[in-house]
């Protein structure tokens, strides 16, 4: 039965299936590196999904769709930023509010878009490279966002590792009090990080509605944002491991879909829960190694920063 699954197609579709959570997760990684825990990823993703969808349908341009999604995701995340950074509200509760609001709000503006087809996102053309056997169809015939997502990973990695601003961002995440004492603008930096995370989550959502599915349905993110949060933990806050983690989860998703299509004698529902069960298992494996987990998590993660206290 496994013979009916083509490994080349499997890897090609794995890359597509992974891209939404990859984008959302790398954004959240930057947010958490700055010491902020934003549980609103799911909400920002779904708002990005509808905003990108609407922008693409109305303008006829997938590119404008992705731009619109990034803007919408960032705009929504600024609500979170204002509440947690200026009004000093609890990050866990505010993130949850963002998700609940995002799910309702997206359904509200998505009313007119059910059943509409978005403009197709063109595939990249690498000329003769795309025709290389095996590698061509596997890696080089995707839409641009797949490559953009990998570039974002590389950029975030380089930013955190090699730039001064990246160093400051990590310092703020490790000890906001020390960073503040050194004269760095903790709040400003965190707001920027949160906005970046929102934009990435928005892109991830738009990738779902414009490329992966491609259509708009209420609640279509179905927990992808939460899986993205889990991937950041899985990756121990390291950019390239986010890539590995996302592709692993994409692989499980694609594999179970393929098994469904191949008509395996397991009820569809049990296969569909595989990515979620897998997320739990991976979280357990990662967290079990307490020493390592504790070393890598930003020390100020989730703590409220107030200059006078």
């Amino acid at each position, binding site marked *: 039965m496994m013979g009916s699954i083509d490994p080349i197609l499997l890897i090609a579709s794995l890359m597509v299936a992974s891209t939404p959570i990859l984008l959302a997760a790398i954004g959240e990684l930057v947010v958490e590196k700055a010491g902020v825990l934003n549980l609103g990823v799911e909400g920002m993703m779904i708002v990005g999904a509808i905003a990108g969808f609407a922008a693409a349908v109305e303008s006829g341009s997938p590119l404008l769709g992705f731009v619109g999604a990034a803007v919408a995701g960032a705009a929504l995340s600024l609500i979170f930023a204002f509440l947690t950074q200026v*009004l*000093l509200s609890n990050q866990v509760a505010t993130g949850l509010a963002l998700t609940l*609001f995002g799910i309702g*709000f997206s359904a509200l503006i998505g009313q007119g878009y059910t059943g509409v087809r978005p403009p197709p996102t063109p595939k990249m053309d690498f000329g003769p490279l795309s025709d290389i056997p095996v590698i061509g169809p596997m890696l080089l015939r995707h839409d641009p966002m797949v490559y953009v997502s990998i570039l974002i990973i590389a950029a975030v990695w380089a930013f955190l590792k090699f730039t001064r601003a990246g160093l400051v961002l990590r310092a703020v995440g490790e000890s906001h009090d020390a960073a503040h004492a050194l004269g760095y603008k903790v709040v400003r930096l965190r707001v920027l990080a949160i906005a970046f995370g929102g934009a990435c989550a928005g892109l991830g959502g738009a990738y779902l509605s414009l490329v992966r599915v491609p259509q708009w349905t209420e609640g279509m993110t179905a927990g992808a944002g939460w899986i993205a949060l889990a991937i950041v933990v899985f990756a121990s806050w390291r950019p390239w491991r986010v890539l590995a983690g996302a592709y692993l989860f994409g692989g499980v998703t694609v594999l179970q879909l393929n098994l469904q299509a191949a008509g395996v004698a397991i*009820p569809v529902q049990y296969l569909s829960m595989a990515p979620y069960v897998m997320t739990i298992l991976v979280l357990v494996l990662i967290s*079990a190694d307490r020493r390592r987990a504790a070393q890598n998590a930003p020390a100020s993660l989730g703590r409220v920063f107030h200059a*006078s206290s």
Partner: protein
Amino acid sequence: MLKLERRPAPSRGWTAVTPVLAVVATMIAGGLLFAALGKDPVEAIRTIFWDPLFGKFASYSRPQLLVKAGPLILIAIGLSLGFKAQVWNIGAEGQYIMGALFGAATGLAFYPTDSVLLFPAMVLMGALGGFLWAMIPAVLKLRFGTSEILVSLMLVYVAQHIMSAASFGMLKNPEGMGFPGSRNFQHYPAAFNSELIAGTGMHWGGVAALGAVVAAYVLLSRHILGFHIRVAGEAPRAARFAGVSPALLTSVCLGTSGALAGLAGLFEVSGPAGQITTDFASGYGFTAIIVAFLGRLHPVGILLAGLLMALTYIGGELAQLTLNLPSAAVQAFQGMLLFFLLAFDVLANFRIRLARRKVEGRARA
């Protein structure tokens, strides 16, 4: 330039006033949102907040208030215990589903008995189902340090798929002519959770919710465990020195909230919903999070907040019928309410002072 100055202790006055402020702000912002969508804002707000209680269809919608508020209060009471102790159970929706499944499966296993013991047995199994589902994140957290937020949430999706599998497989009504979904408890008197006083919407779920409010109040104000829960949340280090066991607290908080969510699921499936179907889950588990916060994690506050949130559900349905407002509008509304509540919290926790320019300038230099 405004400056925030932390209060030594949260202001009691503001803590009580801010939920009311949040509701008013939500009405205004919601009105603006509806206006932007081309609806008459005043009429929309009136339809949601006033008509269910005093409007044309009030005789129908008023009993619905208790039907909807029951599960919300029941779940939120459980969640509030955890939130107080900084134990974040976000997966009440999954525990609600598993409670409904366990309870319904028990009832259906004995079909068509008329034993008076059946319903109590279902109640017990419902609570057990929710309890066991909540103990998964608890055990994983204690044993491996896994985040209970992410695990309890993932389990919501797992529970939804199990429910779907059950309504297509194990629990499918053999006389259902191939349609997914279990037998309807309405036609099964021994297992049906009927209205206790006709026309009020009060069923066993409402009774349990009121019981939970009283029990939580007593626990938090009179019992050492309630004191430990509060200390663990406010001063974790102090709690540890005082010998409060974090393992015990995590288990108690997650287990209790799971059991209560399971109960809510059982009362719902055996009463208002009537059967296990693929779309049984209604989001009560998530809305209850808002109820817990809106009620300030205080039992009496949660009672009031649950009634208010139930009102938005019923008003939302009414607005869907009369104004053609999309059903999701209510969810956006509820999310907004939580935003405003959290935003106004700043007034309870901080004093807002006018800082003098000069001081600010020197600080900058």
